[in-house]
């Protein structure tokens, strides 16, 4: 055995010893018009999608990179103070949390929700509330923060078939990207007067 082989650490062995250092979880809650919880789904997020990393690479290297916007158009995105901005005000759907009826499994190259629900009080529309947040906090060996958004069904009818969720963010004004997309394990329905609340928790753990 030579010196080199003696000093090689086998990553396949050590991989099993460690939990992921960065995580993203989601919580979906559906309530009726009285606030009673009808459905709750909590799980690790299926995925950040590539745009998140394209923008991260741009910031880390301080250069422009191509980032696909939510319309599927490649944008030359220089690092920008608006990068990843997601704290949308009420009624804004260009960024912030979105829900939709798409059922296609997540792929790394997804650039939008498959069938996002639009803003409004019409048929199959939701009134998007403002994005709220909890500041980064340390608990044990984890630092986490969350972003949350509630969407109200004022359409007059139950909205069925909600199956996908995600986060849209700014790339740089005026461009927008999808940074996260998840397909729920089961369909969600929102009764008239009810709401769906989506919480994403970003965490790093040592």
């Amino acid at each position, binding site marked *: 055995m030579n*010196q080199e082989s003696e*000093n090689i650490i086998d*990553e396949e062995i050590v991989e099993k010893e460690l939990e992921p*250092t960065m995580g993203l979880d989601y919580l979906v809650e559906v309530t009726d018009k009285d606030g009673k919880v009808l459905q709750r789904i909590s799980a690790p997020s*299926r995925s950040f999608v590539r745009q998140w990393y394209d923008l991260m690479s741009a910031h880390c290297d301080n250069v422009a*990179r191509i980032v696909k916007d939510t319309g599927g158009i490649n944008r030359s995105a220089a690092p920008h103070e608006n990068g990843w901005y997601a*704290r949308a005000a009420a009624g804004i759907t260009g960024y912030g949390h979105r829900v939709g009826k798409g059922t296609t499994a997540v792929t*790394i190259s997804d650039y939008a929700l498959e069938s996002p629900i639009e803003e409004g009080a019409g048929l199959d529309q939701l009134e998007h509330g403002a994005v709220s947040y909890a*500041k980064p906090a340390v608990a044990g060996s984890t630092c986490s923060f969350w972003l949350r958004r509630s969407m109200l069904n004022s359409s007059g009818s139950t909205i069925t078939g909600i199956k996908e969720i995600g986060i849209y963010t700014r790339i740089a004004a005026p461009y927008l990207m999808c940074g996260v997309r998840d397909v729920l394990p089961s369909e969600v329905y929102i009764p008239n007067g009810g709401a769906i609340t989506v919480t994403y928790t970003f965490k*790093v753990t040592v």
Partner: protein
Amino acid sequence: MKHELWYSVVVRDRQGKVVSRERRRSRSFLKQWNQLMFAQMTDIRLPTDDKLKDIDGVLISVYPHEKNFRMESHTSYSGIFCGTGDTAVAIDDYKLEAKIENGTGPGQFSYLMSTVGAVSISDSHAQFVVSRSPVNNSGDTITVREVGIYTSCYVTTAQWWMCAVRDVLETPQDVPAGGAITVDYTLEVVA
């Protein structure tokens, strides 16, 4: 989803021969990483009791900024660095325990530049690599026990520096005089 950070270190002697290497999953992004991402995503300045700690231990209220997360460029402040500390990583570490400084004196590395690659896609993977190859021109062997990444962060228009990642190596790496150590961090997500 697997959202991961890997590091590899490769030590070469003065002839360029690989004498040692280690690759494993990074122990961690640190608290500062999430604090800066929170600032970018919300445009919220963290209040006094929650401020971000820079590499000198100064508490700062970071802003969203176009040059947040810079890892390229500056020899002494940003990018990948090596150190001799071996205290286990904690979530609130704010610097390498004993950073090896830039130079050619005893116990110093010539750091050269950090580079950042573009994202590559393979099947369900997206990843990019941050890399640096410090050279040991000190005249004596230097033992590396920790590695990490420093990045820029901003308070209005003023640039500060924070430690985003720190790892203690499984095996201390002896970098011989005239040799070099290449440290690669791979940020990866698997959908």
